[in-house]
C-alpha cells in the first residue's frame, strides 16, 4: 500500500477533485430540542438533563418551536425549499452517547431541500449546491478512559455526560461539488467560512468551532481529468476549524492521488483528522457498517410549517453577508480583491473591529492580512485565537501612524504582546523601544557611510539606487528603530 503523498498541485493537474461537505450546527436555542433543559455550554456533567433527554420510561418529547423556526430560517437563507409536511425519524444504534439507544433525526423527509450558497475564491465564483438541511438532536459527550490520550481505541471504559444530548443540531449537506480544480481546498474553506457567517448573521447559533457548535465532515474523491464517473470517496470526520477544513482536503487529495498513481484503489471509508499533523487516518469498519433501521418517530407528530410562518420568517432574514461586506468595502475603500482575501483568511470581522477601535482601514487590513495571519500560521493557530486584541492592534497602528514606532518596531511590539509579555505600552516601556532620535540616526548614518566608502562614493555621484544598502545598515545598527524615510534623507545629505 502506498503511504507516500503526491504533491497537491501535481495531483490536481491529473485528477479532478469532487468535494462534499456535511456541516453540523448546534442551534442557539435556550433549551433542548425536545425538553426544557438548558443548552448552556460548560455546565458540570449531567446537570442539564431530565427524564426526557435521558430517555427514562414514561417521558415524552415535545418539539421546541424556536428550533423549527431557526431551521426554517437557515433553509431560507440557503435558498432552500421548505417542506410543507415532514416527520422526525428514529435512528437506532447502540452507542451509549444517546441514552435512549436512538437519536431523533430526519431521514427521507428533511425540513429544507435544494438550496445553494455562493462563494468566491481567487476572483472566481463557485455555487455550492445544498442537498438538504435537517434537524436532529445532538448526542452526549463521551470521555474514553484507559486508552492513550482519551481516544476510543484501547479504552477500558467510557464516561458519558448527557448535557449535550438533545441540543438541537442542524445538519447541512451539500451535493457533490465539482469543477473546483486546484482551488478545491480553498473552496471548501470558503464555503464553511461563508456558511458560518450566514449562520451568525441569522442569530441561530454562536458558530464557535472551538466549542464544537459548528463541526464539519469533509468528503473527497478524485477522478481522472476528463472522466465523468465519480471516484471512490472518503469521509473525514470532525474537522473542527476553518484551517483544518482546508488542510483535510489538501491531505486527502495528496493521499488519494498517490494511491491512484500507484495503481491502487481508494478505500471507501470514514477517516479521522488529526489537528497536530494535518493528516487523516482510517476509522474502523465497525464504526461505519451500520444499519440504523430508521422509522418515523412515533412519539412526535409531523411538522407542517404554515406558509404564512415561512413567509413571515423570510421577511425577517438579514441581508446576506455578501451584501453587508460590499457595504463595508465601500465605506472603507477596499477593493473586491481586498475583500475576498480578508474573507477567506477569516479576518474581515477583525479588520472591521480594528477600524472601529480607531485604526485606519488600510493599516487595519495591513496588520491582519499582511502580518498577523502569517504569525498565526507560524504559531499553528487560527488567526482569531492569536493572543492580541483588536484594541491592541489599533494602539500599535496608532503609534506607528504618529511616528512613535517604525513598522519594524511595531511588529516586534505585536510579537511581544502575542508572546504574553503584556499590553502594548508596557511592552514598549519594558524593552525601551522607541524610534531612533535625530542624533542617534546621524551617528548611524555616518558610521554606515564610513564603513562602505565605495557605496558612499556612488551616492555622491548621484546613484540613488546605492542608498538602499546604507539604509539597511542603518536599520541594522539601530535595531529597526530608524525611520527609513528620514534615514534616506540623511544619507543623501551626509554623503555629499
Amino acid at each position, binding site marked *: 500500500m502506498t503511504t507516500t503523498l503526491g504533491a497537491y498541485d501535481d495531483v490536481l493537474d491529473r485528477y479532478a477533485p469532487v468535494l462534499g461537505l456535511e456541516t453540523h450546527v448546534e442551534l442557539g436555542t435556550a433549551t433542548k430540542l425536545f425538553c426544557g433543559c438548558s443548552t448552556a455550554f460548560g455546565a*458540570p*456533567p*449531567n446537570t442539564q438533563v*431530565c427524564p426526557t433527554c435521558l430517555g427514562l420510561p414514561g417521558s415524552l418529547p415535545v*418539539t421546541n418551536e424556536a428550533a423549527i423556526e431557526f431551521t426554517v430560517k437557515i433553509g431560507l437563507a440557503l435558498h432552500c425549499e421548505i417542506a410543507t409536511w415532514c416527520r422526525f425519524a428514529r435512528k437506532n444504534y447502540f452507542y*451509549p452517547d444517546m441514552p435512549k439507544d436512538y437519536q431523533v433525526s430526519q431521514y427521507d423527509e428533511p425540513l429544507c431541500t435544494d438550496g445553494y450558497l455562493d462563494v468566491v475564491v481567487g476572483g472566481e465564483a463557485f455555487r455550492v449546491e445544498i442537498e438538504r438541511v435537517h434537524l436532529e438532536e445532538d448526542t452526549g459527550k463521551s*470521555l474514553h478512559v484507559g486508552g492513550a490520550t482519551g481516544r476510543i481505541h484501547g479504552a477500558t*471504559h467510557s464516561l458519558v455526560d448527557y448535557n449535550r444530548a438533545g441540543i438541537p443540531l442542524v445538519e447541512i449537506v451539500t451535493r457533490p461539488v465539482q469543477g473546483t480544480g486546484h482551488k478545491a481546498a480553498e473552496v471548501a474553506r470558503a464555503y464553511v467560512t461563508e456558511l458560518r457567517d450566514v449562520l451568525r448573521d441569522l442569530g441561530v447559533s454562536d458558530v464557535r468551532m472551538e466549542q464544537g457548535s459548528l463541526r464539519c465532515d469533509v468528503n473527497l474523491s478524485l477522478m481522472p481529468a476528463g472522466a465523468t464517473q465519480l471516484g471512490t470517496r472518503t469521509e473525514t470526520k470532525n474537522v473542527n476549524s476553518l484551517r483544518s477544513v482546508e488542510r483535510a482536503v489538501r491531505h486527502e487529495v495528496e493521499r488519494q492521488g498517490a494511491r491512484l498513481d500507484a495503481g491502487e484503489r481508494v478505500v471507501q471509508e470514514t477517516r479521522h483528522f488529526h489537528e497536530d499533523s494535518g493528516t487523516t487516518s482510517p476509522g474502523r469498519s465497525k464504526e461505519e457498517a451500520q444499519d440504523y433501521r430508521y422509522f*418515523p418517530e412515533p412519539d412526535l*407528530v409531523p411538522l407542517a410549517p404554515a406558509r404564512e410562518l415561512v413567509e413571515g420568517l423570510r421577511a425577517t432574514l438579514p441581508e446576506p453577508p455578501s451584501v453587508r461586506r460590499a457595504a463595508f468595502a465601500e465605506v472603507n475603500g477596499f477593493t473586491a480583491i481586498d475583500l475576498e482575501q480578508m474573507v477567506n483568511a477569516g479576518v474581515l470581522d477583525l479588520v472591521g473591529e480594528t477600524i472601529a477601535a480607531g485604526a485606519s482601514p488600510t493599516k487595519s487590513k495591513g496588520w491582519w492580512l499582511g502580518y498577523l495571519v502569517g504569525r498565526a500560521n507560524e504559531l499553528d493557530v487560527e488567526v482569531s485565537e492569536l493572543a492580541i486584541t483588536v484594541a491592541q492592534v489599533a494602539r500599535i497602528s496608532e503609534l506607528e501612524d504618529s511616528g512613535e514606532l517604525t513598522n519594524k518596531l511595531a511588529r516586534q511590539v505585536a510579537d511581544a504582546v502575542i508572546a504574553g509579555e503584556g499590553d502594548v505600552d508596557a511592552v514598549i516601556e519594558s524593552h525601551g523601544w522607541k524610534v531612533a532620535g535625530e542624533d542617534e540616526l546621524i551617528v548611524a548614518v555616518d558610521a554606515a557611510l564610513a564603513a562602505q566608502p565605495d557605496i558612499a562614493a556612488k551616492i555622491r555621484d548621484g546613484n540613488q539606487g546605492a542608498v538602499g544598502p546604507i539604509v539597511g545598515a542603518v536599520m541594522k545598527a539601530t535595531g529597526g528603530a530608524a525611520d527609513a524615510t528620514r534615514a534616506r534623507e540623511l544619507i543623501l545629505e551626509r554623503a555629499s
Partner: protein
Amino acid sequence: MSDSELDAMAGQLDVILSAVGRVQQVAAADIPPTSHAVPLTNVFRPDTAAAGLSAEEALAAAPAAEQDRFRVPRILDDE
C-alpha cells in the same frame, strides 16, 4: 400440533387473511402509510427552560457512575 389446535388455527388464519384482503382493497399508491394514530401536526412548546434533574438524581439509577458521569463498557472491541 394436535388436530384440535389445527382446527382452531385454521379459523384464526382465515380471519387474518380476510382482514389483510380488506386492507389491500383500500391501500393504494396515493394513500400514505400511517405513522401516527392521532391526526395532529405542529405540537410545539415554547423555548423556555424548565428545571431538570440534579447530577445525583440523574445518576441514581445508573448501573455505574464515575466523575459525575455514566460509566459504560468500552465502546469498541480491541483489534
